[in-house]
């Protein structure tokens, strides 16, 4: 009985997050679910408290990163990146794609996939359009790299942040182990996108407009660079990376004179509540049978076949229910098998969502129902691109991870 209730609450939270009904915001549904689980005794107060203690630092870290990325936007960093890409491309479509690759990979790794999707992609579209270059390859590259380039650092993706806190790995060790898988994923994406869009990328410069030299926001760039150095040294100096991110965010917010209300909006409090509540709901469901069900499916060990299986299962689950719930569900089981498995899971949940246009099958089905008459979006083309990259990137990045685990 309690298993069923916990799973229904989890399902209701996910449905609310995917369908986004106005009358039932996802964060409110998830929070109400937590209240229901507490009221029925399915979740003990002690259990809830320990889940909050586990997730609290991650949610705080996430808030700091969101404010940091927003501060970068206010400082004009993404506009400057757009101008730099235009200049570096010399107007040629193939060179522009290379620039977009570089910028999207670094933006995702350093400022997270959210920054690439929300802040960088519109700039990339505008940059390509103004260069009279078909924006399709560049926009698709942003969308793909937001996922596959989010392997590198704990701050690159919320999934990594959750795993980072759960494993207790140092920031540098995480990055060290994920460097090779990250590079391999980028290489696969580059080769496939370059080939898939060969027709769009051919040819000389089309625009006669002279590219302007970008005015780089040196202060914001320095803050981000210092934060990165701080993350790297965090284990040595004994300051948690979350505090370093908060420090960076604070400095940028003060420099840009952001009003407090705007800071709060940038931190997306409803998203923070949703992550916390969803984490607690999954925690309750895990205690009531979900964990043992997952443990039956996930093999033990860190041999190459096991890592491949874990990455594959994680990618499938991420495609069924989105990568955030997939991470919360698999993480407790993977942690018990060691670092290798956790990182293989991240390869799966981070690269996997590229398979579908909207990040998961559930979302895709919903959108198909909700926008049945919307014929303008080419879901088929995106899915074909996903089919070409995801299996290859999954397998080769997991192989790279296995190699890194042997060497490092």
């Amino acid at each position, binding site marked *: 009985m309690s298993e069923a209730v916990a799973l229904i609450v989890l399902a209701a939270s996910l449905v609310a997050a995917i369908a986004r009904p106005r009358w039932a915001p996802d964060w409110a549904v998830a929070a109400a679910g937590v209240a229901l689980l507490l009221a029925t005794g399915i979740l003990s107060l002690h259990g809830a408290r320990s889940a909050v203690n586990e997730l609290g630092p991650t949610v705080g870290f996430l808030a700091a990163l969101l404010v940091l990325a927003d501060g970068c936007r206010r400082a004009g960093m993404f506009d400057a990146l757009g101008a730099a890409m235009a200049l570096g491309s010399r107007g040629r479509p193939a060179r522009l794609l290379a620039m977009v690759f570089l910028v999207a990979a670094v933006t995702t790794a350093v400022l997270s996939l959210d920054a690439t999707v*929300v802040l960088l*992609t*519109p700039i990339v579209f505008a940059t390509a359009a103004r260069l009279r270059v078909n924006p399709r390859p560049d*926009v698709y590259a942003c969308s793909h790299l937001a996922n596959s380039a989010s392997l590198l650092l704990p701050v690159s993706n919320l999934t990594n942040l959750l795993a980072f806190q759960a494993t207790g790995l140092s920031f540098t060790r995480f990055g060290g182990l994920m460097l090779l898988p990250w590079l391999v994923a980028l290489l696969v994406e580059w080769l496939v996108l370059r080939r898939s869009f060969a027709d769009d990328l051919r*040819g000389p410069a*089309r625009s006669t407009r002279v590219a302007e030299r970008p005015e780089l926001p040196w202060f914001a760039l320095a803050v981000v660079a210092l934060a990165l150095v701080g993350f790297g040294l965090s284990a040595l100096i004994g300051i948690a990376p979350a505090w370093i991110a908060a420090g960076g965010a604070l400095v940028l917010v003060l420099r840009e004179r952001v009003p407090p209300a*705007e800071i709060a909006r940038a931190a*997306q409090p*409803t998203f923070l509540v949703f992550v916390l509540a969803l984490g607690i709901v999954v925690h309750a469901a895990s205690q009531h049978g979900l964990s043992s069900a997952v443990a039956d499916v996930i093999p033990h060990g860190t041999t190459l076949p096991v890592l491949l299986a874990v990455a594959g299962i994680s990618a499938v689950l991420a495609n069924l229910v989105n990568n*955030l719930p997939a991470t919360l569900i698999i993480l407790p089981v993977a942690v018990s098998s060691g670092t290798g498995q956790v990182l293989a899971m991240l390869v799966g949940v981070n690269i996997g969502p590229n398979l579908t246009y909207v990040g998961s099958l559930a979302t895709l089905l919903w959108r198909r129902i909700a926008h049945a008459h919307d014929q303008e979006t080419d879901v088929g083309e995106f899915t074909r691109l996903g089919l070409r990259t995801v299996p290859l990137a999954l397998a080769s990045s997991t192989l790279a991870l296995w190699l890194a685990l042997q060497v490092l």
Partner: protein
Amino acid sequence: MRAVVWITEGTWEACVDQAAAFLPPDAEVTLLHVAPSDVEEFAARGPARLLGRHPPPPPPGEPPLRAIADEEAEALLADALARFGRPAQTVPRRGRIEREVVAACAGADLVVLARDGEPRLGPKSLGKHTRFALDHVPCQVLLVWPEPPPGIETIPPPPGHH
């Protein structure tokens, strides 16, 4: 004679030049540009694809992606009109590129369009939208090479020949 000249970012100069060279002076000419609407939609809807996120909307001063695309399409058509140097109507459309081109050719006598694929003889010299338009337009076609046409030696060898 009613003629449509399909203006694209990559090949518009050649199309305009050949239209000016081949079309009779009294032809009623339409310069057509089609913008794909799915790309900007995909870029703009990105945040909605992220589970649970509700990022603040972009600042009010920033033009929406659609406005940027429209502005660029108009600028391109203006450049094409200037290069053509004759009176013509400019028509920006948006939607599925290949379908819009075919629809815009309804009632026309001739369409001018350019090869946009590989620069050698053969079927790969046409991109997929151009291929569709070529196969489906309900009128005569003037098919243009964007650069000087490739030499006869670029023809693919006969099947089975190495």
